[in-house]
């Protein structure tokens, strides 16, 4: 009886999808999955075909392995084939590997990323933006623990302890890019406006978020056309996305004070959080932020470029003011709230796909990419003379008569931020400052720890939904923390935040006991 009912139900689902003309997501997911299955087969046979087609037969020792790397970019990649040929000349000789980069525009990338993870495309190395833990939980990331010491010595030498950011439960799944690991909460502001209004001293004296209010007050009065404070990325991300606390991968359970201790606490219940939300609400009430801040979708950068915003809260490190100056095209400054602290950095990582046929080749190429400045520069900026030139300061710039829109190759992606020429818009001392910052920064107790969310997926799904209801509103100041924060905390508890925190603490303790730091 039961079985009959189930089969009836399945038949039911079948005909509904048919009736609906396959508009639903079920059809879509399944459809793409199936299509991919076919794609896998055909691409597999494709690889075989090309392998037998190359002049070096598979059995020979001088065999050249081919791997494919998928990356997102905001740059140009029209001349990809030409640049690849130049890279392959080096890599074939040095490590016997040929690579093929496949680049996607960022928007498209984020739509396709889940599909890439599903393993239905012929990918060997995959870039992960915004964390790689999904790749791990879906079993899409190759276990690199043994390959790394064998073929990745240069990676180990450069990244050292920071490599732990690519570890889960002691298994190396990802190679994080060598970037800035140490940062804290920062307020980015229009430096030219501060100078114009003579506020330099006041700005220099800012130590906490509250202090910033005095600056905003003057700006509101003297610059009525500018919103004194806006959200860094519009309403798509919470305002305190980058806090003085170490969020250990997600905000459900954090280490306060930059990871001074290894006690995982509920951020939303802390006095610090209530205080910050109180400040934002106060500013909202005083009109320092727009009444529409909750639905504002434009980012700070866009608003600044149009002279419509004065400051925003984001992350801050040694390079933020320089970076923001070049992206916004205005003179920008940054006030750091608290000291920069080094934490687990896995925002941009590279993983080897678990269904790759060439894991060794992948590791060898990653190692070459991080250590060989020629390869690093080729991948990022293309061929000298054609896609970039070196200016009198020894920095890269577009060739004469070309700019960002007409240049035919400018991928920008890299594995190490110091293994390439610097672009003219960058801080000339960037490489030295980066190494120094990473070497000398205070370290969070949770540095290198990655939270494995597998056992609490249901809870996190619910928590994400609770947060989408309150977090942005509270952190941008539109909601009154006095009344809303207790409700928020209550709903988080109902959604199981305590279970997540407990699990996080357990994993962190285990990590620390295993000699994590």
């Amino acid at each position: 009886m039961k079985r009959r009912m189930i089969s009836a139900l399945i038949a039911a689902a079948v005909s509904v999808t048919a009736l609906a003309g396959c508009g639903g997501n079920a059809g879509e997911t399944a459809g793409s999955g199936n299509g991919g299955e076919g794609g896998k087969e055909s691409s597999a046979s494709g690889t075989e075909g090309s392998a037998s087609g190359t002049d070096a037969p598979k059995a020979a020792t001088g065999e050249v392995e081919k791997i494919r790397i998928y990356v997102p970019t905001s740059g140009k990649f029209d001349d990809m084939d030409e640049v690849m040929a130049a890279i392959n000349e080096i890599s074939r000789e040095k490590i016997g590997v040929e690579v093929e980069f496949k680049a996607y525009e960022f928007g498209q990338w984020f739509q396709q990323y889940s599909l890439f993870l599903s393993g239905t495309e012929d990918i060997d190395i995959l870039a992960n933006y915004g964390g790689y833990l999904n790749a791990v939980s879906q079993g899409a990331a190759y276990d690199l623990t043994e390959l790394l010491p064998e073929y990745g010595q240069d990676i180990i030498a450069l990244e050292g302890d920071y490599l732990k950011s690519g570890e889960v439960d002691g298994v190396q799944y990802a190679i994080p890019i060598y970037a800035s690991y140490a940062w804290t909460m920062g307020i980015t502001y229009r430096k030219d406006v501060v100078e114009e209004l003579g506020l330099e001293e006041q700005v220099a004296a800012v130590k906490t978020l509250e202090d910033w209010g005095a600056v905003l007050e003057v700006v509101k009065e003297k610059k009525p056309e500018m919103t004194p404070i806006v959200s860094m990325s519009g309403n798509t991300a919470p305002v305190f996305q980058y806090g003085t606390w170490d969020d250990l991968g997600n905000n459900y359970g954090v280490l306060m004070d930059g990871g001074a201790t290894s006690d995982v606490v509920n951020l939303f219940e802390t006095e610090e959080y209530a205080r910050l939300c109180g400040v934002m609400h106060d500013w909202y009430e005083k009109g320092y932020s727009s009444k529409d801040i909750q639905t504002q979708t434009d980012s700070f950068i866009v608003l600044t470029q149009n002279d419509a915003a004065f400051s925003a809260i984001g992350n801050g490190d040694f390079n933020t003011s320089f970076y923001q100056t070049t992206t916004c095209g205005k003179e920008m400054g940054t006030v750091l709230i608290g000291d920069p602290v080094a934490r687990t950095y896995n925002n941009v990582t590279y993983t080897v796909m678990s269904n790759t046929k060439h894991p060794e080749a992948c590791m060898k190429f990653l190692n070459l990419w991080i250590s060989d400045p020629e390869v690093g520069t080729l991948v990022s900026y293309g061929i000298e003379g054609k896609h970039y030139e070196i200016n009198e300061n020894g920095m890269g710039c577009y060739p004469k008569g070309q700019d960002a829109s007409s240049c035919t190759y400018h991928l920008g992606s890299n594995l190490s931020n110091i293994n390439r020429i610097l672009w003219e818009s960058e801080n000339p001392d960037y490489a030295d400052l980066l190494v120094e910052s990473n070497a000398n920064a205070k370290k969070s107790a949770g540095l290198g720890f990655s939270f494995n969310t597998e056992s609490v997926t249901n809870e996190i799904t619910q928590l994400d939904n609770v947060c989408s209801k309150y977090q942005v509103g509270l952190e941008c100041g539109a909601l009154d923390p006095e009344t809303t924060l207790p409700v928020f905390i209550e709903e988080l508890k109902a959604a199981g935040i305590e279970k997540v925190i407990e699990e996080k603490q357990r994993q962190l303790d285990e990590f620390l006991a295993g000699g994590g730091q």
Partner: protein
Amino acid sequence: MGKHRAVKQVKRYGPFYIMALPACIYFFINNYIPMGGLILAFEKYTVSGGIFGSEKVGLNNFKFLFQSADAWIMTRNTILYNLAFIVLGTSISIVVAYLLHEIRSTVSRKIYQTVILFPGLLSVIIVSYLANALLAGDTGFINMHLLAPLGLEPVSFYSEQKWWPFFLTFIHLWQMTGTNCILYLANMSAIDPGLYEAANLDGANRFQCFFKITLPCLVPTIVTLSILSVGKIFNSDFGLFYQVPMNSGAILDVTQTIDTYVYRGLMNTANMGMSAAACFYQSVVGFCLVMITNTLVRKFSSENAMF
């Protein structure tokens, strides 16, 4: 009887079967084969395991839909909004179609029809910004040019829940009436004009014509379309419910539907199994509702039932 009749049937309808063949093949490839993927709803998908080889986890993937405190809210929203859309949508479309039908001049009828149809062609992103231009707190048309000159306090629409059921219903109707009334309009032109002539001779007025002739003739269409809509009652118009409220958290209690919940919850985790489970659940409930509605219709007026 069997064999003889079958041969006769094929002889008689053979060409029709051949004509239907491409569609059948299309549906088989596009809609039936992918259904094997529904197995994902019962699996913890891993790349190495693939679609059919991953670990089976039973009904585990369905848990997240029901565990949440919001389960009731999102189910309620999805069903009530859809009911409102079906009832209001159908009646307004019929009225508009009737009005268009009554216009004698072909030129002006075409113009009106195009104007009504136009909003349906707009991307929901554009619609959301049109709504934003009207509703924004600081710069919105309603606050700046209607309420302020009247000396009324500005309303922050994006944080007050009470407005949104009306806004969303209005926007949906504004968008969809044009496309929906095409079908009714086509049906109305198919009604025998002799009926109207006879009614006119007997002295019936417009209202009587509408209720005694037009409406009864449309009943089969209305019933079929409603049954189809009921089947999708657990699916919501994602663009409308996600984009138009501009992701404002404060009004989530009246804008959250099953689709937006699934999206918000799974956007960060990219969990194949859970997404498949949500869709599977929606399809099964939708199918049951179609069967129930059709059975009821068949019971009360069998000639109008779909099957």
